[in-house]
């Protein structure tokens, strides 16, 4: 038995743009175009993952301690929210392809809810991190529940990547009053939190862009605007939204889970 259910008669109709010759060509152009865009997105986020891996390899001890203060419950909730959002999105695309406006609207609304929910959870998480002074910069501050956790862990790996003199001079020139060794680790934790805020921040920006696009689509579909007669806008938004989900699929374990024991 086939896993496919639909024949071409069941599909909503589409309009052909002037530059295309036939509808399959048009559809494939849009899909391939979206994928080339997603390739650029992969490279965009990929560079950040590279930086994360590199610094984690260089400063494993400091990074693992920094990993440990992230709030896993928030991250896990968001992962569940985004994966579910992805599922609702596929159902939304399916409904749109079948020309079922009511169901399209329902599923799209659910996806939007997930997206907003993600941002709400994230903002609570950010708020707590700002409160703990985990945002890098002059006010960066480090407190652990287990005293002494950050002594003895500073890096033996350090000299493999960075010139030793650069580190020392950096530590000396720092404005912190704590002992030099602690400062070193504190700086490296700033490195981790810089990456954390940039990666999750850029991801959140993508979520916000997704909300704007999906919100627009929602109203266009609600009022049966002719520009959404075609299912392609919904399908392409779906691809984008799945990509946002995939980024979190990687971000969540790599930021929150590893080094948690």
């Amino acid at each position: 038995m086939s896993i496919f259910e639909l024949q071409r008669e069941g599909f909503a109709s589409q309009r052909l743009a002037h530059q295309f010759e036939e509808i399959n060509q048009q559809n494939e152009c849009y899909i391939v175009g979206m994928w080339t865009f997603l390739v650029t997105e992969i490279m965009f986020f990929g560079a950040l993952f590279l930086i994360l891996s590199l610094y984690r390899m260089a400063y494993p001890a400091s990074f693992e301690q920094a990993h440990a203060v992230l709030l896993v419950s928030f991250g896990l909730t968001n992962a569940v929210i985004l994966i579910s959002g992805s599922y609702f999105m596929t159902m939304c695309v399916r409904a749109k392809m079948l020309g079922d406006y009511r169901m399209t609207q329902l599923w799209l609304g659910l996806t939007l809810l997930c997206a907003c929910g993600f941002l709400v959870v994230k903002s609570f998480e950010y708020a707590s991190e700002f409160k703990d002074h985990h945002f890098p910069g002059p006010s960066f501050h480090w407190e652990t529940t287990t005293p002494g956790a950050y002594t003895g862990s500073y890096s033996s790996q350090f000299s493999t990547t960075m010139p030793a003199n650069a580190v020392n001079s950096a530590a000396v020139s720092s404005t912190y009053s704590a002992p030099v060794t602690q400062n070193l680790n504190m700086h490296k934790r700033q490195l981790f939190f810089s990456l954390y805020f940039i990666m999750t921040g850029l991801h959140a920006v993508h979520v916000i862009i997704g909300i704007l696009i999906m919100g627009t689509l929602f109203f266009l579909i609600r009022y049966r605007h002719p520009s959404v007669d075609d299912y392609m806008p919904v399908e392409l938004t779906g691809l984008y939204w799945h990509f946002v989900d995939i980024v979190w699929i990687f971000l969540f374990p790599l930021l929150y889970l590893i080094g948690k024991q």
Partner: protein
Amino acid sequence: MSSILLRPDNLHGDTVLDEPNYLNWKSTVASWLLTKDHKRIAVMYFFSISFMFLIGGIAASGIRLALVRPHDTFFSSETYDKMFSAHGIIMVFFFLVPSIPATLGNFLVPLMIGAKDLAFPRLNLLSWYVYIVASAIMLGAVAFGGIDTGWTFYEPYSSIYSNSNVVAVTFAVFLAGFASIMTGMNFIVTIHKMRAPGLTWFRLPLFIWGMYATSLIMVLGTPVVAITLLLVTLQRMFGLCIFDPSCGGDPLLFEHLFWFYSHPAVYIMVLPSMAVVSEVIACFSRKRIFGYEFVAFSSMAIALLGFFVWGHHMFVTGESMYAGMVFSLLSFLIAVPSAIKVFNWSATLYKGNVWLSAPLIFAIGFILLFTIGGLTGLFLASLAVDVHLNMTYFVVAHFHYVMVGGAIFGFMAGMHFWWPKITGRLYPEGWAIVTAVVMFLGFNFTFFPQFILGFLGMPRRYHYYAPPYQFWNDMSSAGATIMAIGFMLPLFYWAWSLKYGEIAGPNPWGAKGLEWTVPSPPPSHNFDEIPLVTEEAYDYKAIHAAEIAGDYSHLQFDHPFAEAKHSDKPTNFEEH
């Protein structure tokens, strides 16, 4: 009957240009600013990048003026730093990267593959607007104090230690990157999906292969530099640390990520020129490009291999010795596809019926300069020699030979070759040839002395230099003046040709390719009927045979060259 008089008589009248075409179908400002026609967007891009080229050129003149004397008093050292940074950034990101793809590529890709437009016309227009916004931010940043990091934004120059407009400039480059990503996406999809029936991959003009390879680099490389520059911006704006050694960050990582794009970006600049040169040489030697498949695949090989060599910019910056060895080897390897192209172009000219017109002179200039630029690249790719030559004027001369001698000569060749198609009129051939020669001589006068300077050890980017270097620097500055004149000339005769140039007709060169089958300028919808392609690219056999026999009837207009050839063999003609 004289064959050269076969041309339709109305080609001399203005009537042809009055027919509806992409230029005259509407003339309101809004019809230009809201156009989705790839040809109009190409024209708008041409004017925008020409303006940026002018600004970059002014900065270059300032640099050469400062270097006339060992201890310059025209500019403060700070201004000098800002001038060479502005020159580099504007020329690389705002002129060379969009130059051929966004103008000739935009104009020709749909025409050459028999499509009515690019796959995403609105995205194409958006690309231009993003470019304009980026340029405006860039020019604003330069006007309000400039940037002193050099075009590479190396850390820690660009971190909090630089007291200049780093945020604005990196953001402008970030945006310009997106403009080129959009162009690249459009080309990739268009070339994959919108080819006319019968136009298989191996019937494509080599220009299309070149554009495809370029688009690959744009799509795969640009996001990396975009995120890198975004990180620099975030570092400065929010005090985050990514590349900052004071919190354990690695400035070398910035260089890795920057060159991961910026080395392939050199191939974004030169691959389109190679693509143009392939077209020009095939047309004016009346032969199919020798080893078509090899030239096509060498474009792809350059695009792919170009991604594996970025580390050769970092041999002396503390990169691992083993990485250096690998990058050195790979950099040597990339000379192979480049050499394949040069040999195949030469082989195409050999025994061709060579018509030494202005585009071909520019193209030959390209081959000569690119060869010098490429071979000196091998010096720099070898680890030991690089220790001596790195950060000297040898490097400056090398990449100008590739980026000016290569990219701009290719751009000029292409602009002249397709000028009749774009505007419907011919440029004055004599002036164009003079320009090609002046530019070639001026260019060599400017940059060859810099090889010597670099070899003698003069470091790049310094405002003052030791007096013994003055002779070569003065020669370089003098050459720059000649080159500047060479760049000015087209401005005048192109403008002149728009009004007074001879009406070109659809195919003034007797060239092959779908773009020459439509009227010049082409109508808005390009093709009345989508063509069916049944022949290989560059099928010049018949034309070649006819011209050897003295028959120039396919040229359709009385080009001086055709007359000269014709008068060589008057008797043959009278007999027919």
